[in-house]
């Protein structure tokens, strides 16, 4: 079916199976490979994007349920240069393998958009479904605080 999406400010119409998860639309139809596949069941958070301003796991969100959605991916987060969370992740050397990092950043950016000065507990709650196998959690936390103070 024809589905209209706005991704990173660009609106387009694509003809795809409505059950296709948004993740694969972004990665394979739009070449936006910054959004990562980690589990396919919404458990790891590597595929987190913003949909209509909310953090959403794109791996188990069918594109057919995203009609006319306004989507922002890691590629579009820093529309005018780096987003403060991206800069903080650079400054704290947060990334290890980096596969989960775009999802971590999208979730953190969402948190800061609604809660500019989160406590550790706020971070724990907002980031609880963002897994990092390398174990960069200490620096993910410190980078979020750094971005909040930027």
């Amino acid at each position, binding site marked *: 079916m024809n589905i209209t999406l706005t991704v990173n400010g660009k609106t387009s119409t694509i003809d795809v199976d409505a059950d296709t998860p948004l993740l694969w639309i972004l990665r394979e139809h739009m070449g936006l490979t910054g959004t990562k596949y980690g589990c396919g069941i919404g458990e790891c958070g590597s595929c987190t994007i913003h949909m209509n301003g909310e953090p959403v796991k794109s791996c188990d969100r069918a594109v057919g349920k995203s009609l006319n959605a306004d989507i922002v991916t890691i590629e579009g987060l820093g529309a005018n240069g780096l987003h403060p969370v*991206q800069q903080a992740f650079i400054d704290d050397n947060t990334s290890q393998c980096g596969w989960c990092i775009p999802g971590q950043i999208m979730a953190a950016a969402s948190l800061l958009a609604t809660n500019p000065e989160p406590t550790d507990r706020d971070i724990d709650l907002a980031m*609880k479904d963002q897994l990092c196998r390398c174990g960069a959690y200490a620096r993910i936390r410190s980078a979020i605080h750094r971005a909040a103070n930027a």
Partner: protein
Amino acid sequence: MSQAMEMKRRTFIQSVATVGGALVVGFHLPSRYASAATDGPELNAWVHVAPDNTVTLRASQSEMGQGPTNGNLMMFAEEMECAWPVSFEFGSGRPEYINPLAGLQITGGSTATPGFWDVMRKAGAQTRHMLINAAAKQWGVSADECSARNSVVTHAGSGMSATFGELAAAAAQETPPEEPTLKTPDQFRLIGTATQRLDSKMKVTGEAIYGMDVSIPGMVVAAIRHAPFGAKIAAYDEAAAMAVPGVHDVLEIGQAVYPENNVPCLIVTADTYWQAEQGLKAANPTFDGNGWAGLDSAQIHQAFVEGAEEEGALGRVDGDFDAAIASADKVVEAHYEVPYLSHSPMEPMNCLADYRGDFLEIWASTQDPGGGYIMAEKLSGLPQDKIKIHVTFLGGGFGRRVEVDYLEQAVEASMKLKKPVKLVWSREEDMQNNFHRPAYLAKMTAGIDADGKPVAWRHRNVGPGIWLSPYRSSRLKDLFADSDFLKGQRESGVDFHAVQGGKDIGYDFANLQVSWVQKDFPVPIVFLRGVGNTMNCFFIESFLDEVAETVGKDPYELRHELLAKEPRMQAVLDLAAEKAGWGKPLPKGHYQGIAFHNSFDTPFADVIEISVRGGRRIKVHKVVRALDCGIVVNPDQVEAQCQSGLVWGLTMAMYSEHTVRGAKLVESNFDNYRLLRISQMPEMEWHTVKNTNSPTGIGEPVFHTVTPALVNALYAATGKRVRSVPLKNHGYSLA
């Protein structure tokens, strides 16, 4: 082409692509591989310099997160005297890139830093000499009067100077000295400083290219189902798969060059991964049983318990254990056990192969391009100069990506289908068809003499052997079949990794026996970060606390005494105890546990402070970590690894377990193979013993001590000794 330039080019390609009904991929390639390096002349295998003085270094070690890119290129830049930061790209397939500690271009075994410590510094110094010699010739002065700094060569007397970029073309013609003089540690300017990761920016913007991100025109994407544990494919519905929109091919593969990897698989290819998975579901492959259909974890456990009463093959014998036990005043004995574990890197296995008859090109997140070339040569029949493996970023490796089975599958598919194939494993395929860290049981026995001294120690391990298993395990056992390393294991009957960390235990026991009872099962097994140390440290360090209690000694004091002949190790133990305030009063309800282990030549100690609520809910308040890795090349990455190891250790202690039922692995995804969460990351500090010894590795030694330190703290808090992990199985949770 530098990573930065490549990114600009790629962005351009993306921006001109139109989004419509058709697949829009275009080229989507990692650094430099779209075209040959054009940014100025190559001075050697490691570096080329552009006219604008941009220095691009090549990383030969795979970047899977542990930071060898920064570390190794810092070593090179220190001696080359180029400006930092540098551009970088990944190199493969040249003899210079062979890891001296592995014999192949392979990243693992905590060898990236120690293996290339001399290689990178020497090559950097040679490059500097080439640039200085070129400048001296141009100026008609002696090279001895010139020096290099910050990518500029200067002549002291005249003040003449030239950039590396200006000199590069001439320098490329120079012959470097065989053995240049290297800096002494007091002369280091870059080594020892905390540098920004060179890959940070591209990883936070989504621009870093991993294996799964690569695409080339004309490729199809393949989804895969593996037959479990050596079973055969029984049936599948090809017509149903082909009826799924976008599907191109249904194909059986599994004709591996390494017998252990000859696993029958069904793949379905399509325009996109999602379509390929739908095709595979429609095909609905079924599999024939294999004689192991009844295999389950209880059966494996029972075999281990029975095996614990066998003598096993002796890996090390000091003194006379039997005599010492016979005359011992007290004997302590216990069984310890660990389950199968998976690596579960966040990026599932994948590979893109393009076989074109006379040339084979592979893009892969791999730790082992060296082994990949050998496999590809055997499988394709092409000589290695007709094969190119492009190493991308790796979304985690942890030892899993030392295996090349997924490269093998993609190459086979591309050869049979005569088109480029990108193979992508689902997370379920990744976990359930992983090569696992083997399950093990240890029977630990200690004898205490009349003076309260532990004089006899027996560590009998029961379980599979990665090198000696007749079932599916690392194909390195094929690759190194004729090596002395493997011959020695066959002759002794002792698998190297089954007793790793036990055979080379640092403690001094007058009468010591380390043995291995071989019990193999068809669950595929391989090296996981730390390998044998992952279980043997838990066995040794938990049991040693039981011994300490029996002899009435403080757990730290006993360890300190047993390390009397190992001052380097003892210093690390002491450092952890001192920084953690071991033995000093703690807040009410807080308890400490301690553990020490030496692996990969990096002694490591942990002190963990916990409290336990309601007897079951563990809160980790603080972890103090100490290590000796010699010269700290990049303190920022040593800290990152200390953090990483703590997460790994707590995850393994609390949650990690793959169980076997009906000859299949049960845990299949992150909903049932749980990882630690951000809220559970405790406060941590780390300390190194300061010295100027050559650096040792840190990627693998960083997590073994966490589990026993936690279990020992738990005993201090509750009086209950836990002898198997994960702790969730004993009713414990982690706050």
